């Protein structure tokens, strides 16, 4: 990272200002060290680590099934995709087959969280630009999605709904109807949002040509997700390396070529529509009843009624709860397409029930590194636009 030129600072021509860590629009505890000439940004440098939580080390002392709860808390606006990346990595290492129905349900929830996450982004991004009200509308609709998550997982924010081998519980009764209601209401929501920002010259003016990230720069800094697609490369792990039966779904990878905040804005808006398409398809594929987790008793807990009548089931239950299951020696990487980009886990197993190394490849960390490029020669107002437009999540950056 290039730091500010000390000689330039000694001249007194520029001013250092700390944007954050406590600031209304840094979405958490990001600190950006800005070197300003008037309001023009000479240099911007993200300073991270204010939310360092030591997740990777924590995970090394947890069993594979327990680690799942840690993944929720990385990107807490899209916990399901984190769960998905992690459980897929473990399943890959164990060569575990997951029932198709569970895979579809996973897709359904991964896309629901993508929509929820994009809704939060939309609200906060537009709020950063100065329009307050949209935030409240998107939060209202996000609530509907959180209710769905709560109905299935029992928890709203950190569900840990996906487990190694499948899901924690089956879908509750009436879940299909609730999702159908959501799909029905969705065009109406989007229309009411678009009334507020679409074609609004004030919004367009704040976004167009601002915070430009060229494709080379995006690739150089490993930007992924909508930030990369906004620069023109249709890279999407759901298409390129399909996982969890994504190859059975029909959807489009949304791209724009301009690479500015406006392009990233519309990539995300388009993605919301694509996600809703996937949700609709997934709902048709999910049968009301069926297996929701693997039948491998060495991994998944046996059903309650089996435990009371079956000696072996009791042993399995006891072993799984107290010690966890062993994972074969080896290492693995699995990435999924999260709302913010490639969310991946690199796991090293020494053959025991706990990971030897648990490494998270979180998209926001890489996306944030492009901030100095995005802010260069912009105004202070553009720094806020830039931070909002790369949609970072501090829990994801600092780990």
């Amino acid at each position: 990272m290039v730091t500010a030129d000390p000689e330039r600072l000694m001249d007194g021509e520029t001013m250092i200002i700390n944007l954050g860590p406590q600031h209304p629009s840094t979405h958490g505890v990001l600190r950006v060290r800005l070197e300003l000439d008037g309001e023009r940004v000479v240099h911007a440098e993200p300073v991270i680590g204010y939310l360092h939580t030591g997740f990777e080390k924590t995970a090394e002392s947890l069993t594979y099934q327990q680690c799942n709860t840690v993944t929720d808390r990385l990107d807490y606006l899209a916990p399901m995709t984190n769960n998905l990346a992690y459980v897929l990595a473990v399943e890959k290492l164990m060569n575990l087959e997951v029932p198709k129905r569970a895979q579809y349900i996973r897709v359904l929830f991964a896309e629901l969280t993508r929509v929820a996450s994009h809704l939060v982004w939309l609200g906060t991004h537009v709020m950063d630009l100065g329009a307050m009200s949209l935030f409240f509308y998107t939060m209202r609709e996000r609530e509907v999605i959180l209710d769905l998550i709560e109905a299935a997982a029992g928890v709203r924010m950190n569900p840990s709904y996906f487990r190694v081998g499948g899901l924690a519980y089956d879908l509750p009764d009436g879940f299909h109807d609730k999702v159908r209601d959501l799909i029905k209401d969705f065009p109406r929501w989007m229309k009411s949002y678009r009334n507020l920002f679409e074609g609004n010259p004030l919004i367009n003016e704040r976004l167009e040509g601002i915070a430009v990230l060229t494709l080379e720069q995006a690739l150089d800094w490993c930007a992924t997700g909508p930030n990369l697609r906004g620069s023109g490369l249709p890279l999407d792990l759901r298409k390129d390396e399909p996982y969890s039966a994504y190859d059975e779904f029909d959807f489009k990878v949304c791209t724009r070529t301009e690479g500015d905040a406006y392009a990233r804005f519309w990539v995300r808006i388009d993605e919301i529509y694509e996600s809703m398409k996937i949700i609709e398809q997934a709902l048709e594929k999910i049968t009301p009843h069926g297996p929701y987790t693997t039948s491998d008793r060495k991994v998944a807990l046996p059903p309650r009624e089996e435990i009371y009548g079956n000696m072996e089931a009791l042993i399995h239950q006891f072993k799984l709860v107290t010690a966890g299951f062993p994972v074969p020696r080896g290492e693995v990487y699995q990435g999924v397409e999260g709302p913010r980009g490639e969310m991946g886990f690199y796991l090293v197993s020494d053959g025991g029930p706990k990971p030897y190394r648990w490494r998270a490849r979180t998209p926001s960390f890489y996306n944030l590194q492009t901030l100095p490029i995005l802010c260069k020669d912009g105004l202070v107002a553009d720094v806020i636009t830039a931070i909002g437009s790369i949609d970072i999540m501090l829990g994801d950056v600092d780990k």
Partner: protein
Amino acid sequence: MIQIVLLIVKVILLLLILMGGFAYTMLAERRFLGFFQLRLGPNRVGPGGLFQPLADAVKMMLKEDLMPLQADSVVYRLAPVFSLLAALSVDAVIPFGAPIHIFGQTVSLDIANPGIGLLIAFAFSSLGIYGIVLGGWASQNKYSLLGGIRASAQMISYELAMGLSVLGVLMMAGTANLENIVLAQRAQGWFFLPQIIPFLIYFTTAVAETNRTPFDLPEAESELVAGYHTEYSGIRFAMFVMAEYINMMTVSGLAVTLFFGGWLGPSFLPPIIWFFIKMAIVIFVFIWIRATFPRFRYDKLMSFGWKVLLPISFIYFLGTAAFVSGIL
């Protein structure tokens, strides 16, 4: 003698109206914003939240008045006073209603009725920005400084257009006396119809003058934390807020006086009520705008002021001049 007594009574009444108006404009804004944003807004203190302003006032007065160590103490203390004073002074020349007859005297419902009322109003409302600039400068805080710089950049970009936009009204009425401008509208009809474009320009610049969304650049919560009043607390902070809301009432009052016939209206309501009804509608539009629009970027605002508003208002000004003088 009786005139001096009347004047003092009028000053006290106006101050009370403005303070009360400030308190309840703020409450109205918070309630309306609440409704716009699927919330209820403050509704706990008193029936429907009606006593909320009292609670706020008590809180603001009891809060510790902090000052940064390095701040320029004199300017820092004076800036909010200055802001508030400028905001209050403008209202002295606004006629709130038709002259009334009391104690055998004809009393006009304004404190002063100078021939150049319009100029005085604009002079004082322009002064208000200095409070913000000085406050931002004296705080010795970088965010405040940026807020102050933005305030001055903003001022030079809208003041000219604002001045030009009301010249048409001045020419049509043939006077700069605000009371006579209202009376002229009785004869010629409300000025907003022939002067619709200047009215829109006046309204846009009025939003900028009061530093409200989408021109709230000096404050710009999401960019500059709180802008020029980042370091202010307690009653001094309250004075800045008061200045903002009183300014909003003032520019609404001026808009009503200049373009919407002031106190004129059907006779089933007294003139002063008509004035306040019109003013309330304009204030509601301010609140509505705040709930809807994002913020300008300050260089865009400057080019908007200079390249769009100024030429349009100038052309319209020339056209009105040609029309009034009979060339057209």
